[in-house]
């Protein structure tokens, strides 16, 4: 290809050209507007940067080629025959361009989000280094505030939320017997929005005045007064949020319209149910955080008065709008993990999921209740006091559907044939940690207790028990569980188990003691603290460094196994769901022939039960989900040879 052709066609060359052009455009626009109003000086760095923060990511997306097909179509030119040239991976380069294959996008998502996980994890190490002793050692207070703000924002918006979208991107279309997602080009756009948001948040460290330093909650009016770095957050969140909404819409349409024949809602694996309910949460809730950050952006950039008191602003309004998203976001970060755990426990215990329908109903119950509890983050905020008790009650009621899930998982293990492989270990670690996180959650729901412990390390402990011991452990479980399917290789079981035990132990040594310091009087988000907390903080810091090191085992295992691990069979866990009935990794268009679903996904131990059949096997009598002993006429799937164990 000629050099000029490279700059004309979609890809990195064109993106590299478009981004600086967007900056020049922002400069031109600002200068033009300021000239029209007669403002001085014409060159205002802050204004230019604000416009550029919107224009440059869009220019990058145009350059890399996310919009090419749509622009072509919108310009009214003759329809191009789809040649599938942007579908599937032929070499490592295929992962670095706009690709419409859900499997490639899934891998892009997972690798990108793990990159941000590592970066945000390193920020956490810096935080713990500073907190090892009282006083100021490594970073000044402003940098420190930036560290924990960027740590939380990147972990939430660039790791936990999107990594689930990545895992689901790979497995959900396979699980429902679909050749791809419903909108493959939208899927690609959803992915490419992410790195722009992530780079923007990290780049805020380079902004004058340092990174955004108001926490991931960015409470106004602090966030409307802090330096330029805040702008990187308010705008970055818009891109991450747009990515979430687009991919959630895609999942909803895919799951509703693209299920294989026979795949009724009551035959869907719970992973699919989880992704369905999560997507509902995302499309309903995410516009609220977009709104809250737009208010901040407008207050900062255009001089509006959403949050300036005395001119009609209302400070508490920010918190209501913010938490109306950010509490459901907790479930956005948890429900997909619930789905993964259901798959892992059922498969590795070789038993049907206990109370399958209640498991699905409890997901729906959490979605509904999840929208009725946001103000429990505001018990000491000075809001209307009558609202507190109803929110306490709804918050505590969420324990009921969550309890159903935990009890059903452990009942699934009962009388199973348990294979204690790495994904199963992480699932059990998850149940332990999440039960503890749920218990501290109940305590936090009780208003008098929260009046004391809100904004303390007790809350830091709680959030890490539910988001690390909870969500991240489910992510590890899912990555190990589907690693053979995604890469076509087996991971190293011994290293996996070592990784589990080290992270389980050091996780608890790191975050367990935080409960004590919090109740004892240490507030969160402080660079410096009272001397009486020195010993326990040193202990926490040392544990956290070892905890961080344990991740390297995972990284080593993943990289070496992906390159040189033994080849994986199509179905190493002898699972029933459809993704395991195709080769590892799956064929480029998933199925030569769309399967027909004839039974539930978890019919382990039921003689002759089959979930889905291909081609010739289609004659078989269906066995409905949830029925015991529905013995179809012969033809139980012979268990394929297991590659390991």
């Amino acid at each position, binding site marked *: 290809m000629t050099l000029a052709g490279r700059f004309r066609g979609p890809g990195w060359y064109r993106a590299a050209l478009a981004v600086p052009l967007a900056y020049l455009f922002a400069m031109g626009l600002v200068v033009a507007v300021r000239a029209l109003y007669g403002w001085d000086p014409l060159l205002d760095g802050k204004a230019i940067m604000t416009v550029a923060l919107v224009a440059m990511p869009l220019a990058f997306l145009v350059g890399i080629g996310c919009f090419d097909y749509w622009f072509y179509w919108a310009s009214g030119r003759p329809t191009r025959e789809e040649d599938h040239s942007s579908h599937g991976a032929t070499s490592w380069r295929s992962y670095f361009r706009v690709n419409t294959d859900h499997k490639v996008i899934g891998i892009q998502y997972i690798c990108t989000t793990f990159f941000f996980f590592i970066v945000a994890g390193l920020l956490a190490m810096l935080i713990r280094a500073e907190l090892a002793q009282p006083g*100021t050692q490594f970073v000044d*207070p402003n940098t420190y*505030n930036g560290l924990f703000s960027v740590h939380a924002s990147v972990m939430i918006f660039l790791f936990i939320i999107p990594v689930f979208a990545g895992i689901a991107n790979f497995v959900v279309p396979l699980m429902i017997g679909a050749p791809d997602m419903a909108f493959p080009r939208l899927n690609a756009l959803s992915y490419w929005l992410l790195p722009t948001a992530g780079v923007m948040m990290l780049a805020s460290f380079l902004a004058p005045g340092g990174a955004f*330093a*108001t926490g991931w909650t960015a409470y106004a009016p*602090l966030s409307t007064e802090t330096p330029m770095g805040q702008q990187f957050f308010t705008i970055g969140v818009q891109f991450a949020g747009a990515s979430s909404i687009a991919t959630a819409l895609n999942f909803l349409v895919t799951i509703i319209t693209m299920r294989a024949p026979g795949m009724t809602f009551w035959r869907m694996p719970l992973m699919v149910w989880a992704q369905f309910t999560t997507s509902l949460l995302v499309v309903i809730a995410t516009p609220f955080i977009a709104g809250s950050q737009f208010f901040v952006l407008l207050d900062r950039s255009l001089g509006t008065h959403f949050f300036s*008191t005395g001119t009609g*602003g*209302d*400070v*508490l309004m920010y918190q209501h709008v913010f938490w109306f998203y950010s509490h459901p976001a907790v479930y956005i970060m948890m429900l997909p993990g619930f789905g993964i755990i259901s798959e892992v426990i059922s498969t590795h215990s*070789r*038993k049907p999921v*206990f*109370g*399958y*329908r*209640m498991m699905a109903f409890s997901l729906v119950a959490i979605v509904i209740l999840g929208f009725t509890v946001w103000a429990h983050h505001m018990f*000491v*905020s*000075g809001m209307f006091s009558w609202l507190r*008790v109803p929110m*306490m*009650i709804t918050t505590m009621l969420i324990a*009921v559907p969550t*309890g*159903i899930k935990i009890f*059903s998982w*452990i*009942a699934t293990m009962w009388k*199973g*044939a*348990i*294979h*204690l492989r790495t994904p199963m270990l992480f699932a*059990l670690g998850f*149940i*332990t940690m999440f*039960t503890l996180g749920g*218990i501290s959650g*109940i305590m936090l729901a*009780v*208003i*008098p*207790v929260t*009046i*004391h412990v*809100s*904004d303390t390390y007790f809350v830091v402990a709680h959030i890490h028990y539910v988001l690390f011991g909870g969500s991240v452990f489910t992510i590890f479980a899912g990555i190990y569980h589907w690693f053979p399917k995604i890469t076509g290789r087996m991971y190293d079981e011994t290293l996996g188990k070592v990784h589990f035990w080290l992270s389980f132990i050091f996780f608890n040594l790191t975050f367990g003691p935080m409960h004590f310091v919090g109740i*004892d*009087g240490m*507030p969160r988000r402080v660079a*410096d603290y*009272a001397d009486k907390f020195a010993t326990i903080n040193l202990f926490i810091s040392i544990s956290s460094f070892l905890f961080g090191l344990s991740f390297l085992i995972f990284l080593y295992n993943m990289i070496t196994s992906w390159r040189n691990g033994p080849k994986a069979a199509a179905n190493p866990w*002898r699972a029933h769901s459809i993704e395991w009935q195709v080769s590892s990794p799956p064929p480029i268009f998933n199925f030569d022939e769309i399967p027909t679903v004839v039974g539930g996904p978890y*019919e382990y*131990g039921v003689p002759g039960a089959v979930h889905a059949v291909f081609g010739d096997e289609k004659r078989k009598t269906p066995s409905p989900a*949830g029925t*015991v002993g529905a013995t179809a006429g012969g033809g139980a799937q012979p268990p394929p040879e297991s590659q390991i*164990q």
Partner: protein
Amino acid sequence: MSRALRRRPVLGMALVSLIATAVGIAIVLNINWFPVQASSASTEIDTLYDVLLIASVPVFVLVMAVVVYSVLAFRVKPGDLSDGAPIHGNTRLEVIWVTIPFMLVSALAVYGWVVLDDIEAKASNPLVVDVRARQFAWSFDYPGEGKVSSDQLVLPKGRPVEFRIHTKDVIHSFWVPEFRLKSDAVPGLTTHLRTTPTRVGRYHVVCAELCGIGHSTMRQRVMVVPPAAFGRWLSHKKATGGDKSDAGGDTASVTPGVGYGAAVGGLR
């Protein structure tokens, strides 16, 4: 071990769980969780927390007992191709584990509500203190006692006090861990806290809401003193015209606290 467990699994597990629950409750109740109790609210909140602990231990033990037992009893060797029992559910069990948690959390919510009403009850003739927050310091005005203003919060033991909390700039949060009380200071609003100090001592008021670069140093002294000493302190304050730089009045019972300058001094 494994065979004995298989024969009477539920009985054995119940026994082990009971012992573990008893031990667990004994341990969590013996942990010294809280700072000292220095207000009327603190005793009630600490008891509520203890009740929550007692309710939580059996739940955690039950979940762990089933997990550990299942792993011990139902683990198979690698390469074992057998399946588990095809049990799809049990309606009675599912009704039980919806009903019992529902009743448990409802009871705890009612108890929490009762405690909330108690600790926020209005008392007659309270000492009114205007708490004024700014980046990054507190000041305390005593509007009912003449023009007294102070850098440290001095309170008489045994008299009900009502805090009216204000802020000049961003959101702060007024927190005295020994009182177990916290309320945000919100621009445009006045928030309220009520309590009665019950123990003479020196504590800290801590800012609990991120308020900017000096947030971690926004800690100032709280003194709870006998009523007589409080009176002496007030008259000394009035005599010196509420001079903010001199926080120590009666040196016999009130020692100078950490002032604003000392608090932010560590920042630079």
